């Protein structure tokens, strides 16, 4: 064991589309949260007669929204076209080994074991969190376009989300579109913390992997 730990294997886990969608989404969500909060409660005061504050906020929200949509679409495509680490199968723990991994990771978080289990890709726990997050993302996109359908009555915007207004009234859509921003924030807090934690305890180059794509795995153990 001790010898194996010395030998690091360089594994290409996060291919370019995964990293691209990750970082574009990080930027998009930041922009969407700030501009979204302004759209909900315009907290800035006009500075001059030439201000176009709400106009810009909506423009940025919409632009970031489209970028977000594209990146989610890319990531969904990649969960069929990409490598095994990004495949759709990893996101819901169904197989025995996934359930086992979920238990082990949870045990590690609850201090019941001292080292994290061996995972080349996402841990089962992280993957499942991403799956739940993905559902929120989908709702944000559909509800966002449902709200936008009031500004733009095109077939495209109807397909992207306008249809939701037939199931829920606009007030309910807006409420959830606003409310579900906060679980995303909560996710990000936990996500960054756990990335740092797993990077330092796993010693596998996890943090670097989302930038460069490679992890440096010690021997199985």
């Amino acid at each position, binding site marked *: 064991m001790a010898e194996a730990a010395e030998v690091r294997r360089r594994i290409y886990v996060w291919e370019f589309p995964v990293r691209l969608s990750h970082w574009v989404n990080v930027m998009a969500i930041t922009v969407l949260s700030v501009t979204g909060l302004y759209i*909900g*409660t*315009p907290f*800035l*005061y*006009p500075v001059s007669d030439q*201000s*176009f*504050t*709400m*106009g810009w*906020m909506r423009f940025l929200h919409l632009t970031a929204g489209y970028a977000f949509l594209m990146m989610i679409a890319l990531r969904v495509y990649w969960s069929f076209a990409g490598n095994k680490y990004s495949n759709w199968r990893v996101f819901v723990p169904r197989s025995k080994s996934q359930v086992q991994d979920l238990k082990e990771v949870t045990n590690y*978080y609850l*201090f019941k074991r*001292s080292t994290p289990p061996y995972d080349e890709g996402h841990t089962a726990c992280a993957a499942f969190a991403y799956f739940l997050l993905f559902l929120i993302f989908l709702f944000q996109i559909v509800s966002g376009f449902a709200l936008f359908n*009031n*500004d733009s009555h095109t077939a495209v915007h109807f397909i992207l989300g306008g249809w939701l207004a037939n199931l829920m*009234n*606009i*007030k*309910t859509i*807006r*409420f959830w579109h*606003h*409310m579900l*921003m*906060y*679980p995303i*924030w*909560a996710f990000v*807090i*936990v996500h960054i*913390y756990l990335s740092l*934690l797993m990077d330092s305890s796993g010693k596998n180059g996890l943090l670097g992997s989302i930038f460069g794509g490679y992890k440096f795995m010690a021997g199985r153990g």
Partner: protein
Amino acid sequence: MGEGKDLRDSSPTVYQALRQRGVSRRDFMKFCSLMAATLALPASFAPKIAEALEKAKRPSLVWLEFQDCCGNTESFLRASNPTVVDIVLDVLSVDYHETIMAPAGKDAEKSLQDVVKNQKGKYICVVEGAIPTRDGGVYCCVGGRAAIDIAKEVCGNSLATIAMGACAWDGGIPSANPNPTGAVGVKDVISGVPIINLPGCPANVVNLTGTVVHYLTFGSLPLTDNNGAPLFGYGTRIHDACQRRAHYDAGRYVRQWGDEGHRNGWCLYYMGCKGPETYKNCPTAQWNDRTSWPVGAGHNCIGCASPKFWDTMTPFYSRLAAIPGFGVESTADKVGLGLAIATAAGVTAHAIARAGRKHIRHEDEEKTAKTEGK
């Protein structure tokens, strides 16, 4: 025109009726231009409308009131310029209207029966107010008959029925949650006759007249949207025709009633304006003979022309709904921020606990090592 003629053969035409009432040619032409504008037709249509109204017979009209507040009738009668009221009343031959007709009691009911019997399929029926359906419809009776029975008979035999106002359209305020009387709109209980809905609380009389004039001019009812409301009146969004829109885009908002922004006529979005999701011609048609309209007068739109507006557009003075079951103080933002802060606290607690554990584990390991060493 064609259909107009056989409505009522002995009566004078619309134009004759107006002249008898002393409406000048000039006022008549003005009215025709207003109608062309309301119907979103080019000004060149005004003479065509005039021509049609000169020949058309006045359609008989009966006006039923059910679960209502009489607000549509008020709106109908409250045009500031008396000539327009005259014109409106004279374009239509109002044979039955509980609030404004002269006969009362049995005589009144008889004039309704006469219209239904003698002009079956030829009169226009306007309904104001919702129709209760629970417990056999006992919650609204007129002359001893349930509203739902009257509606079935009178609307069912009409040429077309116009549901005037939010309540007649989709149940409106009487049908608001929890809807104790099972109130519904006309379209929910009547079938087989064309129904034109004029949502709004109240509906604008210009849209009622416009619908009738459209019929008299073109011989057909106006095109409608998926709410059954005429596109000429309900096809544009309040927000897109609003005079305060430039302030919206610029980010200039009224933040408190009577503040500087309010005095300067800034946008009412921050105060909860529902103009961005409401479709009606209020900004252009306006009210009280085009004097003003709610947003023009400094009050936010409450979305009264939207489906189930009492349930879906409240709170009127806030863009964002309150969280159900929480107090008004617990806004979505407070709860959301609470979640984020609790998460950050949880993460911090985990980090601290982990540091502590590491320490303990370290000591444990040292101890084990020592004991083993011994």
